[in-house]
């Protein structure tokens, strides 16, 4: 550890940009070390083997060294099992990456976030329903960032009842809704939908719709003034899913 050396760490490349003449500057999500910056030396040389390995949305094992803000990639091993994303699933993949880059801090380990991301990438690659993959990811991310309340108990510690509507918003426990106007930045959701969301079950259209509205609210608060380029891209081909 004295040279800050890390071996064979599960990771995904979130973004790569050219660096110097022949290198790449990578933004990677790792399981144990969070999101870090790595330089892949020589990765842009025409015959570099890294070209076909350092791909986004591919499970990799990375080794690196260095203690500064930007480490140096040592090796990258292909884990395989996930076909390259293309078409709409690829656009959705960029959306996941943009959320991670904008909402997670560098060098802040979040093993659960890594798990949530890995599951979403596999979901996109396996032809699952895109909107349900996206909602599950958004909810998982908001939850691991400590921003989502429990969806199965209310503010009094009582279990959520399927037929009762609840008032739901960022950073606050669920409250039984008594009727009347809905406060800004909050949303009224039926108990049974909250229970489905708590269980990660997005098979019903109604759950996906309510979850989409709610996640917009949560992500909107987390993102503040930042806009999402991938959301705009998705909207420009009008396919964000239901």
């Amino acid at each position, binding site marked *: 550890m004295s040279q800050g050396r890390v071996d064979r760490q599960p990771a995904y490349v979130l973004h790569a940009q050219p660096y110097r003449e022949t290198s790449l500057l990578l933004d990677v999500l790792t399981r144990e070390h969070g999101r870090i910056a790595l330089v892949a030396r020589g990765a842009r040389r025409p015959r570099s083997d890294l070209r076909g390995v350092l791909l986004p949305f591919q499970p990799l094992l990375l080794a690196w060294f260095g203690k500064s803000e930007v480490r140096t990639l040592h090796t990258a091993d292909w884990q395989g099992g996930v076909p390259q994303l*293309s078409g709409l699933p690829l656009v959705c993949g960029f959306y996941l990456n943009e959320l991670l880059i904008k909402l997670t801090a560098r060098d802040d380990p979040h093993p659960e976030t890594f798990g949530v991301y890995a599951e979403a990438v596999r979901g996109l690659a396996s032809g699952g329903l895109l909107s349900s993959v996206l909602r599950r990811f958004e909810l998982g991310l908001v939850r691991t960032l400590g921003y989502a309340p429990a969806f199965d108990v209310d503010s009094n510690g009582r279990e959520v009842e399927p037929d009762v509507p609840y008032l739901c918003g960022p950073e606050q426990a669920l409250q039984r809704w008594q009727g009347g106007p809905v406060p800004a930045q909050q949303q009224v959701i039926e108990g049974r939908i909250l229970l489905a969301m708590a269980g990660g079950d997005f098979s019903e259209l109604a759950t996906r719709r309510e979850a989409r509205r709610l996640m917009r609210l949560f992500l909107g608060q987390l993102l503040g003034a930042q806009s999402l380029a991938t959301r705009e891209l998705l909207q420009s081909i009008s396919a964000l899913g239901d």
Partner: protein
Amino acid sequence: MKNPPSLDQLISALKVLPGVGPKSAQRMAFHLLQRDQAGADRLARALDRALANLTHCERCNTFSETPLCNLCAEPARNQHQLCIVEMPADLLMLEQARCYDGLYFVLMGRLSPIDGIGPKDVNLDKLMVRALDGVVEEVIIATNFTAEGEVTAHMIAELLKDRGLAVSRIARGMPVGGELEYVDSGTLAQALYERRQLG
């Protein structure tokens, strides 16, 4: 000790080049001024001339000194095929491969949402006008097989679908003459996922 202002200006001007940081910019500036003044003069004139004379071809969007570039002006090219590439260098490579006699459209970039490069930055509006001119029958998308090139291809395919055009994507797989033993894992894996039926 400070540099004279004109030297500092040259160094900071050289830093606009991709991959050139302060140290390389300083090295380049010293080289141009000390070792190769004639070269420096040629560079300055060539830059001036390029900026004054080059525009984008009104049909294919590549660099051209005339409203229509040489290639677009050639009547012998197949007018019904349009091949879309990211950069002029890609067009030149395709020409070198002597596999295609249709026309081109050069995007001058690729979509990269995370870098903030959107549809307007890669001339998709101009591409639409060109592809829907009534003469083009087939559009071949030859953007790179990077995640960004693939997103660009997807967007173009979405924009052009249901317009009565045949839209295709160049194939990816094993390099010609390539041996499995020497190919990288990503290429090999994708070649297997995208295998084609024989017979």
